[in-house]
């Protein structure tokens, strides 16, 4: 099983991320699917795509539930059956994993996986409340915590235990904005200085505005097939060679260690073992930087550095675009944007572009093995996927 392709990714698509005033979520999804189909002219969508798996977190944003069949319809994929997955901000990595399972089971040959969220029509306090639903209602939401608040609790603990600094967290934002400025689909395509990050207004101490990912609209998709069918559809397939998944308590307060996500360590271990690769084999990674501290913790949980050394890892430039392990070349959730349900497959889209040499100005030369790390809530869910180019 080691290193054996589980499925091939033959195409991927992404809508523009941002404040997409004139579009509802379904139209953004259609835009993502349109790009994926254009990249894959040999695929006949109505004939070939047999099922659709879609991640979305909240019905509250657009007052719209039961979205899966509607999206299959709007994308012109009916009668392909569709279901929705929900594990907060990891909803579309869950859709991806189900898509992988559906192909490995032998039931389907070709499926479309994706995700979306339409968030910007709501006020910031409303979005704060809706995202808060991913926390434990009777003990976290009820007592006044927010999502920035939960990650701030981890940040304070990490600073206290390891001496991690607000400057180190700020450098994550500076890096991701630099990368996002090179990504035409990113929400905020502009560089920021460390000074600007550190002087931005406080959201939840020690996290400031520029430590937080963006409230965005957007959709993502990828087309999966059995590895042996890949060359029917493309000359440059990317293979998923590892898929890992971890769960933990919903309540952050119930966890012994507040400086690391157990679900992420478990998912990484499973994915690395399946893929037969080690952290040092990874050439490019997209990690869940919903807050800057989350990227620092991700470095440690994924084994890119030792526990406690995540702050140093960003400070010494290891994760920069021209560093030894470029992380979040897309700009990450921080600059590309974080339409929560779209994020997991949007990470796959970026790694697909990188491994097929289509990442433009942010292309990492000679990369062959990529990793994605998508977290739900304060870490009760994590998926890690490992991909290999030809």
């Amino acid at each position, binding site marked *: 099983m080691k290193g054996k392709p589980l499925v091939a990714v033959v195409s991927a698509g992404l809508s523009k991320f941002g404040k997409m005033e004139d579009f509802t979520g379904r139209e953004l999804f259609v835009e993502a699917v349109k790009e994926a189909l254009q990249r894959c002219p040999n695929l006949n969508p109505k004939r070939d795509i047999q099922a659709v798996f879609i991640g979305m977190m909240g019905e509250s944003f657009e007052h719209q539930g039961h979205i899966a069949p509607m999206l299959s319809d709007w994308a012109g994929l009916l009668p392909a059956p569709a279901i929705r997955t929900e594990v907060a901000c990891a909803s579309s990595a869950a859709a991806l994993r189900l898509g992988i399972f559906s192909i490995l089971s032998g039931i389907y040959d070709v499926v479309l996986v994706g995700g979306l969220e339409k968030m910007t029509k709501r006020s910031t306090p409303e979005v*704060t409340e809706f995202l808060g639903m991913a926390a434990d209602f009777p003990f*976290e939401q009820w*007592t006044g915590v927010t999502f920035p608040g939960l990650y701030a609790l981890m940040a*304070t603990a990490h600073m206290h235990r390891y001496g991690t600094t607000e400057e180190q967290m700020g450098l994550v934002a500076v890096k991701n904005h630099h990368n996002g400025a090179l990504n035409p689909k990113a929400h905020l395509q502009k560089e920021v200085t460390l000074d600007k990050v550190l002087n931005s207004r*406080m959201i*939840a101490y020690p996290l400031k505005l520029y430590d937080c990912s963006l409230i965005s609209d957007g959709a993502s998709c990828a087309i999966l097939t059995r590895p042996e069918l890949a060359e029917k559809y493309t000359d440059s397939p990317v293979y998923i060679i590892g898929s890992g998944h971890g769960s933990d308590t919903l309540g952050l307060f119930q966890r012994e260690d507040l400086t690391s996500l157990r679900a992420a360590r478990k998912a990484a271990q499973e994915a690395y073992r399946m893929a037969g690769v080690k952290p040092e084999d990874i050439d490019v990674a997209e990690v869940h930087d919903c807050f800057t501290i989350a990227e620092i913790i991700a470095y440690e949980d994924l084994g890119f550095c030792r526990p406690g050394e995540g702050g140093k890892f960003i400070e010494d430039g290891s994760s920069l675009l021209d560093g030894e392990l470029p992380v979040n070349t897309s700009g990450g959730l921080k600059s590309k944007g974080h339409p929560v349900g779209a994020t997991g497959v949007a990470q796959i889209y970026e790694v697909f572009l990188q491994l097929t040499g289509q990442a433009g100005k942010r292309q990492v030369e000679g990369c062959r093995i990529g990793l994605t790390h998508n977290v739900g809530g304060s870490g009760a869910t994590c998926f890690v996927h490992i991909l290999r180019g030809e």
Partner: protein
Amino acid sequence: MEEDEKNEVPFTIEGFYKFLSEKKLMTAQCRECGAMFLPPRPVCTSCLSKDLMWVQLGTRGKLVTYTVIYVAPPQFQHLAPYAYGIIELENGLRLSGMIRNVEHEKIKIGMELEVAFDSTATEDWPKWPRYYFKPPS
């Protein structure tokens, strides 16, 4: 409340908040394996036994980590900025909540806090009282 009468309260979140409205911090302990868990729940997550009993916890604890929240959901925005933290009670059990009656600059990991009870319940669902943390009186 007598022991038997107490254990007729179901091991649920409603049960937790019923005791809380009486200014008691209560949780469940497994009679089979001795495990304690907070919040209480109907089955022991260590050994899956349903043979549980209510135990009253001391309200003192130590602050494990904290934040100060500036941007809050609509129902809490009038309190912002407010401090929020996780405390560790006896037996290693933890709870999270707002920290009141301390200047934000004086909050330190490791400081002693106690659970305080705000007995006013909301009129609408879920009608639970609130609790928060404050320096020991």
